[in-house]
């Protein structure tokens, strides 16, 4: 930049009174609005993030209950607990909800809550978009729950293969609701990803160059990029499906030049990265917890970052290993075998680096670390069974059998949910200001760990014994009864663990020990502020001096001044080295994003029933959007006096001033 202004380093006096004045001013500048209208206007990343997390766990519980119903149905052969019609809805909603309404959103929610704190800024970029994305996600999820209660739930499996999901073989509106649920959640996820990328690239505290970014932030960055490149595909192919079903397009109709495999290519081009979108943030959580509970930075930071990025790239190159049985040319299949096997390498590197960190550090076995250790025991096994699935011949036997069911529960529950629960135990004090009960936590862990393995390990054997997935019952003669019963009993332990977890959360929230700012002595910036953080996150934006923001912090560390506290000003830094570049202003809370989300949702649901929803929806949509972006009158007045203050040019005569600057 030609007219690049450098910040000035100097010493400045601070007194308790000035600090107190600043604190008060920041508090009422970054206020969180009250009242009903206020509740729907909030744009603070912590509030929205918290709602995101709670909502996601709500769906997790609902989908978990459905899983319980499935285990009841399968516990004994020829069971008549639920019929095929209901069972198909149950397993479809279970899978759909776990993937689209729990796993991805909850990980992004952790990012929404933690990233701004970890990189030392006051709010997430585009806070109103953030609120909008939450409400769209919420309404999409509520819609799916409603369909389940209205006997209108999708019943074609979470990947809705056509033609079964097409107009000819799924009458009614069940599959349409599935396709629109995709649109809801993807709109939300894409919006959050754009916010996260911008936040991470532009609003890091001065000194936090890319090579000093916490691994969790790296993992959220990789995830956000994967979402941005993967999810447009599923939005597109589910739109094709909806159009085929409602207005009679022919995308998937072989008789009219369409193709059934097109769906599988498009869906899995999204669907495989999806797995890593869920799993990569969990890696970040694991790193945070390990470093905090060994009091050492993670071993091999550059290798870890490289592995995350590599995973993000390779993840797009192996979708066809979901289609080995379709009879595609053998040569292509072998390429995808190779690709699927290659992705084990970056994962391996990370596993080894973590083991090295544990070896070097002094582990303290609190609940969060226990969940991470459980993650090791489970995820390594799931990863290895994944390697076996990458081999075409072996996959031809176990594909779509319970072996696969076991595999992806090992990688998703073990690889993502265990670290997530650990992360909740880890960050709960930061989010609520109270510690979670460690003793209950340990019981909770062992219930989960044992319950999980008892439930899902037998499924490997069931798969090798030829039990296909998605069957609502099986004959006694197949000899699958015993293992299924064992598995169902294990599910009981999982349920107990879940209940205990919820109890622990509620109880600790009300009566837990009050937490200090940094109860675990962790290294990242979120622990530098109070627990729970104030609405403005940091009284002074810190200047980061090393990779471990807190551990490498010198006693006389510098802080940022010159950011106005009477308006919502945020410091922007440059992408690579986090040099201060400019100061920008974030919008106030507003009800418009919520209204816009309401209109959008109404449009999505309406379009299931008639194409006329589009023309009907456009005017209100335009109104809400204009309301959203319409400037406030006082901006102008404020800018006048603002420019009277600082060194920048006043609004009028800008051209002249600029010419002088150039000359």
């Amino acid at each position, binding site marked *: 930049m030609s007219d690049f202004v450098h910040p000035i380093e100097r010493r400045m006096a601070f007194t308790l009174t000035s600090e107190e004045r600043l604190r008060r001013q920041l508090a009422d500048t970054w206020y969180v609005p009250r009242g009903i209208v206020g509740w729907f206007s909030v744009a603070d990343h912590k509030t929205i993030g918290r709602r995101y997390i709670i909502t996601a766990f709500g769906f997790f519980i609902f989908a978990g209950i459905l899983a319980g119903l499935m285990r009841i149905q399968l516990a004994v052969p020829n069971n008549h607990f639920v019929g095929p*019609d209901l069972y198909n809805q149950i397993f479809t909603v279970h899978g759909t909800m776990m993937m689209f309404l729990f796993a991805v959103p909850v990980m992004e929610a952790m990012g929404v809550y933690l990233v701004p704190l970890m990189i030392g800024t006051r709010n997430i970029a585009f806070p109103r978009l953030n609120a909008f994305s939450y409400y769209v996600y919420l309404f999409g999820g509520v819609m799916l729950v409603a369909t389940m209660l*209205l006997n209108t739930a999708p019943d074609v499996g979470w990947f809705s293969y056509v033609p079964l999901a097409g107009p*000819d073989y799924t009458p*009614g509106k*069940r599959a349409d609701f599935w396709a629109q649920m995709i649109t809801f959640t993807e709109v939300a996820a894409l919006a959050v990803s754009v916010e996260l990328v911008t936040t991470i690239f532009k609003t890091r505290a001065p000194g936090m160059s890319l090579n000093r970014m916490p691994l969790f932030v790296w993992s959220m960055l990789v995830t956000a990029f994967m979402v941005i490149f993967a999810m447009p595909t599923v939005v597109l192919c589910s739109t094709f499906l909806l159009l085929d079903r409602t207005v*009679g397009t022919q995308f998937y*109709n*072989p008789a*009219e030049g369409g193709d059934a495999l097109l769906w599988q290519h498009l869906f899995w081009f999204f669907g495989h990265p999806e797995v890593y979108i869920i799993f990569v943030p969990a890696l970040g959580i694991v790193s945070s917890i390990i470093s905090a509970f060994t009091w050492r930075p993670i071993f091999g930071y550059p290798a870890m970052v490289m592995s995350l990025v590599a995973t993000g790239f390779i993840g797009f190159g192996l979708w066809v290993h979901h289609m080995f049985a379709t009879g595609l040319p053998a040569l292509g299949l072998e390429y995808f075998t190779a690709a699927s096997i290659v992705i084990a390498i970056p994962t391996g590197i990370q596993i080894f680096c973590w083991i090295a960190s544990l070896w070097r550090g002094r582990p303290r076995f609190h609940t969060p670390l226990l969940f991470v250790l459980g993650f090791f025991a489970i995820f390594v096994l799931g990863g290895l069974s994944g390697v076996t699935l990458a081999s075409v011949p072996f996959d031809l036997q176990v594909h779509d059998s319970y072996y696969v069911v076991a595999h992806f529960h090992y990688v998703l529950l073990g690889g993502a949910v265990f670290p997530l629960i650990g992360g909740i135990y880890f960050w709960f004090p930061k989010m609520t200001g109270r510690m979670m009960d460690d003793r209950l936590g340990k019981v909770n862990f062992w219930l989960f760990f044992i319950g999980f393995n008892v439930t899902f390990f037998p499924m490997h054997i069931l798969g090798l014994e030829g039990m296909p997935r998605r069957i609502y019952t099986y004959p006694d003669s197949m000899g699958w009864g015993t293992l299924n019963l064992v598995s169902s009993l294990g599910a009981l332990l999982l349920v107990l663990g879940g209940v205990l977890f919820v109890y622990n959360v509620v109880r600790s929230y009300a009566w837990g020990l009050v937490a200090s700012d940094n109860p675990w002595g962790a290294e990242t910036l979120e622990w530098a502020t109070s627990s729970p953080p104030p609405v403005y996150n940091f009284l002074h934006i810190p200047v980061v001096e090393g990779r471990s923001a807190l551990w490498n912090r010198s006693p006389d560390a510098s802080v940022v001044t010159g950011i106005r506290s009477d308006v919502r000003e945020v410091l922007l830094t440059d992408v690579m080295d986090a040099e201060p570049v400019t100061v920008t202003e974030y919008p106030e809370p507003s009800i418009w994003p919520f209204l816009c989300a309401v209109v959008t949702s109404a449009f999505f649901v309406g379009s299931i*029933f008639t194409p006329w929803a589009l023309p009907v929806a456009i005017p209100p949509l335009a109104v809400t959007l204009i309301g959203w972006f319409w400037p406030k009158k006082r901006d102008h007045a404020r800018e006048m006096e603002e420019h009277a203050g600082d060194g920048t040019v006043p609004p009028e005569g800008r051209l002249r001033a600029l010419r002088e600057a150039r000359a």
Partner: protein
Amino acid sequence: MSRRRVFVVAFCAVSLVAAACEREIRPFQTLAVASARTQKPVLSPLFPGGQPLPEPNESPFQQNAYGTAEGKRLFDQFNCTGCHSHGGGGMGPALMDDTWIYGSEPANIFESIVEGRPNGMPAWRNKIADQQVWQLVAYIQSMSGNEPIDVLPSRSDHMRYSTPENARRAQTPVQTHAP
């Protein structure tokens, strides 16, 4: 006031449930018990008198997406298309228009199928189970758009023959006289 609002909400909820159930239920064996009526293997070609008109509300397939879709499949498989084409008509009358010679009520259509009609419509008594007749009835009504929009079938996975049922303009049935 507030109670009124509660009532309205409750009413909407109930009607929503009702609509969804009617549309989405898969009544696999609702007619299993009652299906004996028109089905007696008759070993002599003589019929003992006329049959009582079945009540339309006996059918679980009106306004039901599953039944309509099954009817659409059977309409092909039983070769109704041979005479009626895909509703456009051929040897037999068109079924996607508004003219109904023998009545447009489900019961009338049921009878037309079971009893047959002059000028070529064969009697399908004992050849098509009641359950399937009712499914055909539901589909035949949908051909002229006389079903809720969310029940009408869309395109099939076949060659395209005409605008899908859910894209046709609904025809108000007009009773004409038998030729």
